[in-house]
């Protein structure tokens, strides 16, 4: 079962997902993240994918949906440390044109 580890500091909410992101897990992840976003009202949301080994296009839907939620409340949304496999699907969808992807090999952030 997928888990999410939240950390809220200096108006930055980081949400680290542990496990696979597919259609089955996406709904639970979405509901948990949205409830914490609405509760904490962060200025930045960091979606930490460093412990996600597998993600399919349901994960893209999850990311685009959270990006929209953050835009609506005026928060910045960033993706942190996607694995190689996850990066491939992010690139296919052109996600980096919409939001920052930080913490990977080509980025020191």
């Amino acid at each position, binding site marked *: 079962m997928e888990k999410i580890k939240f950390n809220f500091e200096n108006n930055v909410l980081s949400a680290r997902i542990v496990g*696979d992101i*597919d*259609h*089955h897990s*996406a709904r639970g992840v*979405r509901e948990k993240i949205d409830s914490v976003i609405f509760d904490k009202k962060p200025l930045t949301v960091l979606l930490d994918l460093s412990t996600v080994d*597998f*993600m*399919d*296009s*349901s994960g*893209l*839907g*999850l990311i*685009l*949906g959270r990006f*929209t939620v953050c835009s609506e409340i005026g928060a910045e949304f960033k993706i942190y440390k996607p694995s*190689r*496999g996850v990066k*491939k*699907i992010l690139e*296919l*969808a052109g996600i980096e044109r919409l939001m920052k992807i930080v913490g990977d090999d080509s980025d020191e952030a």
Partner: protein
Amino acid sequence: MKRSENQMKLYIPSLSVNEGLARQAVAVFVAQLNPTIEEISDIKCAVSEAVTNCIVHGYKYSSGIIYIGVKYYSDRTVVIEIRDNGCGIENVDEAMTPLFTTDTTGERSGMGFAVMQTFMDKLVVRSKRGEGVRVQMTKKLG
């Protein structure tokens, strides 16, 4: 026609919890060919997309059976067929257009077929309205 070297068949109910089972089972079977991590990752993703389509679109969350068949040949070609008996796709070309989705919640990306197309070497989708969908994907391993 060359003969397949090995094959497997898997019939599973259209429950979302089986998405993980389907991609893991196919990955374990294909692992007999010693694929690269990237090849396995591509295949798992393509299978996950096709099975999710059966559940979300084919059967629209109602109960049905998803048929998965995998074969590989001596030249390291892997052929995966995923089929449902659901509602079918009226316009396959439209459904395969990247970003096209019938979803209105903004939570689905419309990238499923684009992923299958990009991560596999060949994708054939056959469907008629009311007659289910048959997705055949081929990948030649290095």
